[in-house]
Every structure is written in structure tokens, then in C-alpha cells.
């Protein structure tokens, strides 16, 4: 009896997606309700919104906010986490605030930012970043606590500048923690950005979803959702994963 060739995992993933689409198609046909449009209608909406330029514009606005919030949250979270992981005093002072912000609902921070700073772009981006900073800080703090003291000795012996020490010795050690924070960061940030846009902006995917919700246009809501999720998956596959492979190539080759 001959052995069958191993099946690629991709086949199962494709089958799963096709199966889901088939179920959606059948369910839409059976219900025949505007509350559950089929895949064909949704794709039709996406095509029209793309051609008119409406979807690319709102996508770009949202992506801009995601990018700005992400960079701010990662930079500040890294600095705070590193300081807290390296200094017991800083950790003791900062820890209650970290716990406070970790447990404050995202919605409260967004509302307070709009109340105190007005319905501005800076308030929107700041509110999103503030929601993510504590998560990044906690993850990086754990990494900073595990920094190898021998490598620090090495940096001191060879008189590396502070910047060089950070770049050559500290950040590479934090890379797995930073990558974990970045990955969870992107998925959290884009969800919060939509809420921020829904509450206080006049453009972006969140604003559009709210608009179509008021019109009970489920086709448009699903259209925006699908394209946005696809975009986020593309960022993960074509940007985050290749970067991670590059940054950890020494581990792969050493294994």
C-alpha cells in the first residue's frame, strides 16, 4: 500500500474560507433579508465604493490614525517599560499608574480626551495611544527585567555610548517582547481607532460604520469590515511577519 503525499496546510485554510463563504451565501439566499446580504452584494458595494474613491479615502484616514497611534504607543511604552524594568524606584512609582490605566475602560479615556482637548485629531490619536501604552510598558518591563547583566558589562568594557548600548545590546534582547507588544498593539489599536472615529471624527472607517448603522445599511457595514480586516491581515503578512523573520534570523540559523 502506498503512502499518500502530505497535504499542504494551505489547502485546509482555503477549504475553510471557501466553506465559510458557501455557508454565508446559502444563509443569505435562504433568509433573503436586507439584514443579511450575500457575498455577491457585499463585493458589489466594495467595487462601487472603491471606484468612487469613498472607501480608499476613509481607509487612508483610519490607517493614518492607526500608524500615528501605534508609533506613539510603542515609543512611549518602550521608554516607560524599559525605565520601570531597570529601576526599582521607577517601577514602584509607576506601577500604580500602570495598573490604573490598564483597568480604565478605553471608552472612558476616549470620552475624557474629547472633553478635555476637544474633538481634535490630536485628542483622537492621543486617546488611542494612551489606551495601548500600558500594555506595551508591561510587556517591555518584563523583558527589561530579564536583560543579561553580562552583556551590560560587555557594553561598559568596550565603552559603547548610551545610544549604541540601546541599539546594539538592549533593544535586540527586548525584540521578542517588543514584537509581542507590536502584534497585540496593532490588533487593539485599530479596534479602538474605529471607536474614536465613531465618537468624534467626521471621516475614517469608524465614522462610515456609524453612518451606515444609522441607515441600517448592513451591506456597506460588511463591505467596510471585510476590506479593513483584509488590509490588516495584509499588513501582518507583508510587513510584520517579514520584519520578524529578519529580526530573528540569527535564531532561525542557530536552531
Amino acid at each position, binding site marked *: 500500500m502506498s503512502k499518500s503525499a502530505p497535504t499542504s496546510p494551505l489547502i485546509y485554510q482555503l477549504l475553510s474560507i471557501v466553506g465559510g463563504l458557501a455557508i454565508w451565501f446559502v444563509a443569505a439566499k435562504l433568509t433573503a433579508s436586507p439584514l443579511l446580504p450575500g457575498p455577491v452584494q457585499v463585493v458589489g458595494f466594495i467595487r462601487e465604493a472603491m471606484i468612487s474613491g469613498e472607501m480608499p479615502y476613509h481607509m487612508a484616514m483610519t490607517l493614518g490614525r492607526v500608524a500615528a497611534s501605534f508609533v506613539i504607543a510603542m515609543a512611549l511604552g518602550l521608554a516607560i517599560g524599559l525605565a520601570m524594568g531597570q529601576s526599582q524606584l521607577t517601577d514602584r512609582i509607576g506601577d500604580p499608574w500602570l495598573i490604573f490605566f490598564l483597568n480604565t475602560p478605553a471608552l472612558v479615556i476616549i470620552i475624557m480626551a474629547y472633553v478635555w482637548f476637544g474633538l481634535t485629531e490630536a485628542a483622537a490619536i492621543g486617546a488611542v495611544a494612551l489606551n495601548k501604552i500600558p500594555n506595551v510598558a508591561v510587556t517591555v518591563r518584563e523583558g527589561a527585567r530579564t536583560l543579561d547583566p553580562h552583556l551590560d558589562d560587555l557594553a561598559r*568594557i*568596550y565603552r*559603547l555610548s548610551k545610544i549604541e548600548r540601546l541599539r*546594539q545590546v538592549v533593544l535586540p534582547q527586548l525584540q521578542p517582547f517588543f514584537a509581542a507588544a507590536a502584534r497585540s498593539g496593532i490588533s487593539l489599536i485599530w479596534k479602538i481607532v474605529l471607536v474614536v472615529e465613531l465618537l468624534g471624527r467626521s471621516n475614517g472607517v469608524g465614522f462610515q460604520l456609524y453612518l451606515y448603522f444609522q441607515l441600517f445599511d448592513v451591506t456597506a457595514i460588511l463591505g467596510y469590515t471585510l476590506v479593513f480586516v483584509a488590509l490588516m491581515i495584509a499588513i501582518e503578512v507583508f510587513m510584520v511577519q517579514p520584519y520578524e523573520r529578519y529580526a530573528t534570523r540569527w535564531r532561525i540559523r*542557530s*536552531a
Partner: protein
Amino acid sequence: MNVMQRAGASAPLEIRISDKTYAGADGNAVQAVKGLDLSCPGQTCTALVGPSGCGKTTILRIVAGLDAKFSGEVTLADAPIEEARIGFIFQEPTLLPWRTVEDNIRLAAPDLSARALASLLDQAEIADKASRFPGELSLGLARRVSIVRAIAAKPDLLLLDEPFVSLDEATAKTLRMLVARILDDHAVTALLVTHDLREAVELADQIVTLTARPARAKSVRQISTPRAKRTAAFRKKLLGQIDRDAKSR
């Protein structure tokens, strides 16, 4: 111009530590070093030998400038040790795993020419490993990289902290020969810390035996015979003499 070029190659390393005390794990004060006064001639290798935990590594960290909390002073060629260029061979290879062998060496010597790098790698017999990551190397090869890194920056002072520990005897012997060759070829002032008197007899020009904690010099013995001429019989005889020296004090 480095401190040795200013003062002359034979200028000594002076170590004076009147007291080094630190808080132990239980919170009590532990005196690691007391009244240590040593002069290590320039371009020679001095070995500090003593039982495990006697404070050898503490002394080495003070000499390296990694520990400034002590009473006393350390000078090289009459200049504070902070001005000296130091090469350090750690107990573990202590390589940056995300940098290749070449990049690890260039961390200590960014201006090293390609030819000088090739020559050093060749001397350590790792010429074909330049583009490898440390995780791809055996412990013995990683130690070689660590040795090359330490001398690549043309140090005023070479510090060796039990560099052959946890190696099998064959690898340790090969690396001892490499270090001996480096000490002869580069004529650098070196301080070797070891618990193994045989290593000291093979490599050092001056052997300082330390007391148990707090560390003090118990005996000092000069060896004028060149490293290459130290036969097994010579080393055996010397080991016996040092042992008798230590017991008589």
C-alpha cells in the same frame, strides 16, 4: 595615543584595594577584599590564583572599572584605569547572539581593517566562521571569538576571568596554547584570574596566590622562564614550590 604609549610599554598595573565590602544575599556585609597591594609589571601576565569564592572575580571587576564601590585605587602606567583600553575575556563567551562573529569583534574594534581582522581570525583558526552567528558555534569556537574580540582593539590591559572553565581538557589545552601565543605575540599587560594553578604556571609570568575571603596576597612568585620553554617537568617542580610557599605562610 593610549596610556601605554604615553608611559612606555613596561609601565606597571598597580592594584591597591584596602577594602571592598558588599551586601550579601542575607543583607549582611561581606568583606571580599582587604589590604590587597599588587604590582603587575607591564607586558607580562600576572595570575591571581585562589579558591572559588575568594574574591578573584571581584578584584577583576574592580580592575576592569565595572565596580567602583571600593576603597583604594587601580592605575595603569600611573593613569587611572578608566583611561585604559581594556580587553576582557569573560568566563562565558558573552557574545551578542544577534551579531555575526565578525560583527561581534567589530563591536570592540569598529576601526579594525579587513586585513587585521582576517589575520586575527586566522591566528585563532576561525577564519571560516566570520559570517556565522554565535548560536551556530561550539563553546570552544565561541571562546575563540571572545579571545579575538578582546585583543582586536589593541588593549592596554587584557583581563581574563577563568577563560577555560567548563571546557573539555582537549579544547582547554588548545585555547591555553592560543592565549599563550597571543601573550607572546602581542606583548600586552595581562591579568588572569583562575582557580587552576596549572593554568597559571603555563601562562603567567607572575603568580599571586590569594587567601580565602577576604582576599589578600598570600604569596607572589615570579617566573622568568619563557612560556615556550616550560616543560612538564618544570611545571611540576614549580607547582610543588608554589604549594610549599602557600603552606609555609
